[in-house]
């Protein structure tokens, strides 16, 4: 299964990229995805992470579907 994964602000800095396409096995969750990313980008673990799936907030346990757009970011600080 392929996903587009978007990063913003602190997570984009940690990953060194604003967008990755990842290929993972069926049944993977957003949390699983982050665990895999954290191996290559350990500073991700310094942040409390939030997830969105297809532009909606999601907890990290939702099972992903092929083609989902995932976003991984820290608690928002707009305003």
């Amino acid at each position, binding site marked *: 299964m392929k996903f587009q994964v978007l990063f913003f602000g602190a997570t984009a800095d940690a990953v060194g990229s604003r967008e990755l396409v990842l290929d993972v096995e069926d049944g993977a969750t957003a949390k699983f995805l982050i665990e895999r990313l954290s191996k290559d980008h350990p500073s991700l673990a310094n942040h409390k992470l939030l997830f969105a799936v297809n532009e909606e907030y999601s907890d990290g346990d939702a099972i992903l579907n092929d083609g989902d757009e995932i*976003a991984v970011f820290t*608690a928002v600080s707009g305003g």
Partner: protein
Amino acid sequence: MDSNTDFTELTTHPIDITSVARRVVPPECGATVTLDGYARRFTKDKATGEVRETEYLVYEAYEPMALKEMEKLIGQAKREFEIANVGIVHRLGKLEIGETSVVISVASPHRRAAFAACEWLIKELKKTVPIWKKEVFADGEVWVEGEA
């Protein structure tokens, strides 16, 4: 959006408060309440209590989701408060100190509801709308992480 005078915008250009406030005005209302947030020069580090001088800010958004979340907030505000129209504009990119980062304007037939809704909207925006602020200091920079 219930009404076509509600609006949400993300912009890299300076925000004109007057034009935001004026776009929400319906003919049956007599007052608009506007919250104008701006880049402050001095910020206190929540952990250390140290006051630092900011040189400038950078705001970044997950743009389509940020617009959706702002629209959801407007919908919810219009269900919970007796208000007519709402406009929300958030600035993105680099902001000099003192420049407006966000404007929320609420028009309502009765002032009280406009004050209450505007205060609720900025509180919720800061919790849910995917926008991030980077503070740039003389000796470093930090992406601010919210409390949600």
